[in-house]
């Protein structure tokens, strides 16, 4: 039997149905979501974790990049049921304003962002790249970021940032 209730924000929750449970930045999260809801919408619209952005919605721009079990992926191409029981890491799990990660620091120092809308995705991609390839060649940096579009910086500042971060992590 379906039970519905409205929360303080007026959002309707149907209890017992379609609860998607996963680990978001180390914390358990349960969301009422249709199994076919996109993960990006679940994060942004339901959990209000808006660090993950939406831009193309078709897997072309990387603005929505997250990690699922440590694997870089586009959350606009992922459905809720695909993260059931998994570890999801978003930009909110990387660093905080008070404690930026080395990669985030490098983006700040090297002009790796302007409008900042591609930046969470870029940072997720960079962190993933440097974890896998701590001392990347120019070619490997370009491969690692080739799924992410930035319209503002022209990428020069981003490349400087990735190199600076790699040097500091070395």
């Amino acid at each position, binding site marked *: 039997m379906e039970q519905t209730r409205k929360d*303080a*924000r*007026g959002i*309707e929750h149907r209890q017992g149905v379609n609860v998607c449970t996963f680990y978001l930045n180390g914390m358990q999260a349960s969301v009422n979501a249709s199994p076919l809801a996109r993960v990006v919408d679940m994060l*942004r*619209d339901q959990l*209000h974790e*808006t*660090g*993950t*952005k939406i*831009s*193309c*919605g*078709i897997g*072309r*721009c990387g*603005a929505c990049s997250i990690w699922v079990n440590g694997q870089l992926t586009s959350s606009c191409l992922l459905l809720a049921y695909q993260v059931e029981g998994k570890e999801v890491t*978003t*930009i*909110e799990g*990387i*660093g*905080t*304003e008070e404690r*930026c990660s080395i990669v*985030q620091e490098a*983006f*700040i*120092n090297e*002009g*790796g*962002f*302007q*409008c*900042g*809308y*591609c*930046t*969470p995705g870029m*940072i997720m991609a960079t962190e993933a790249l440097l974890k896998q390839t701590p001392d990347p060649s*120019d070619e490997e*940096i*370009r491969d690692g*970021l*080739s799924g*992410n*579009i*930035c*319209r*503002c*910086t*022209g*990428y*020069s*500042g*981003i*490349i400087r940032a990735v190199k600076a971060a790699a040097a500091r992590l070395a």
Partner: protein
Amino acid sequence: MKQPEYQRRPDAEPKVTGSLKYLTDRFEDHMLIGKVMRSKHPHARIKNIDTSAAEAIPGVYAVLTHKDVPGLNRFGIVMPDQPVFCEDRVRYTGDAVAAAAAESAEAAEKALAAVVVEYEPLPVLDSVEKALSPGAEQLHEMGNILHEAFYTRGDLQQGFADCTCIVEETYQLPRQMHGYMETEGGVVVPGQDGGISVYMATQHGFKDRFQLSRILDTPEEKIRIISSPIGGSFGGKDELNLQPYGALLALKTGRPVQVHNTRKESVRAGLKRHPMAITMRTGADESGRVLAHETTIYADTGAYATLGPAILEFAVEHASGLYPIPNIKTTGVSVFTNNGVAGEFRGFGGNQVTFALEGQMDRLAEKLGMEGGQLRFINMRKPSDAGPLGQEIAPTDGGKMVLDDVAAWQQLPLSNTGEPPWLKNGRGGAVSMHGGGLGYGRLDPSGGRLALTKEGKLEAAFGFEECGQGIVAVIETVMKEAFSCNDEDIEITIGDTSKVPVSGSTTASRGTGMIWTAVENMKALFSRQLLTEASRVTGTAAADLYLGAGGIHKSGTESSLFLSYKALAEYVQAGDIETHTSFDFPVTPDEIDSGHYLYSFGGVSAEVEVNLLTGAVRVLDLKQSVSAGPVVYPQGYRGQIEGGGIMALGYTLMEDAVMEEGRYQTENFDTYLMPGVKDLPDNVTVKPREEVMEGDTYGPRGVGEIGTIAVAPAIAEAIYQAIGARPKKLPVSREWILHQIQQRGLLPWNKPEKMLGG
């Protein structure tokens, strides 16, 4: 102005950690989702609109059409000609016909799918030629010509008669998409008093407020526009987009309404750069002095005006660029069609004409047997020369400075070694001149406010928007320079019409210069106010006090803090220490409409590698020299030129939002290709030329646009140097390159004569 390269932008940490709330990230209690229904046809009459089925759908709170617009059912910055909702006719597939607000996006979409619109399709005018052909359907009461602009001087006929060498070409420029990563949208919150707060990106909050007031028939004071931060704009969010729909739905339902375009919706409804066809005829005498220059510009402005007239005038003004040619005739026509609306976009018509003009210079130089640089030096403007419309301008040697750099860069050796044989390299250079501000005869006010807040911060308030360019870093840098204070002493107030003074639009490369000027105007008085109050409070003579980090310092003592701003704030009332300034963007004293006074200059050198097998062009090296006065914030300056350069690389080699029969053939980034990291040249260099003429008091010029202007002609010339064919149509396609390669027999096994011989 010396600032460490690594000074952090005030918005740095929130941006890199994802904690920054963009306006499309906002969430309000009881928020509904709004969706807009766009026309099914590029051109049709509307016979009937029936919303009854839509209204009956569960979860739907409002379905609106033209009948629900209380005020003027039109918008448009210059002339309001675009319907908020179409009444009886649609003119492009982005035209709005209805909008719905519902509990979910799905319900809103379902509602719109249930709106029944009876259309009677009309002939589609999908090109300038069709729109201008005799007997063509008239798209507007004024006809199919939005605007014509002319400029002439000298005696063109005589000029050409004196030439020994004349070149003529027609250049085709594409429909570039802004491609800001954040699509249009935000939230509109209705207030108790019938007013609204509009949280949506724009490049000029007060202009949105004015336009919305007209549409909603609500006084401007009841409308608050919160418009920063913005996830990229490049001109594309200057005009109204979703604001009217969000506002009408919020007022109708009494609930906050979120509207946020999907990329597909954004492509369909949003502005693009004007496609233009530009014919130029240019002649010189045998010494290389250009004597005559004739230009005809046809711009496809799409269905509605927005800033189309101003963009055309800008293109006409810049048709002769940095060369004071004695005999000129320039004609521009901006034509309504059933294509997507073209409008404001970084460079504002300058990109198109500069591609043509610099193309002419290279063609002419070759015919004269000269280097392109040499021809440009012969014709380069002198510091005291008039502007391109013959108007007085602020003296500048910027053109010569950037050309010096480009000429030197042209001498660099090519980076390839001749191996493998199917890769051919070439280098090209080009220069440009770009007017800042809106131009003579247009309202172009600016201003700012400084105040000591009750929390003890030095508040700098400007009506500018942060769209990524780093205006907040400019404000911080200028403030620190003026008051020797710390980052923490400063509070920046922008992007909220309820809090900011009139500063004018965040467009036309004007923000940085206007902030610098405003603080210059206010700093003496504001310092005096602070020191006088500090003197009153402490009983120390004002002459012994000075401003420094954290507050007031006392001379003769160790430079430790004497009275902090926080302490000072406790002794004064809000508003006690406050200074305003308002002024106009500097314009030419000559009464020449749209003529600019302050210009910036850009010089570009590009090396390309052309793959003869695939037709692929890779830019290996992109160097830009920029003359735009002193640098305020080095990281931002560099970022504008680097980013602008890559955006222009896309314009040159890949970007075109193709339309067929009035319909976009692209709807997202899978078919509209913008440069990715792999397209980034191996080397990108930015060289600021900060020197200004003696006595120049105008400070920094702003570099938002200049880095996008001369890139295309430089790359085109580099392609010519590599394969001997001159591009005249952008983007330069691989097919075109392969065709040229084949025609010229550049591949050893594919000589044309062999092909002919079978």
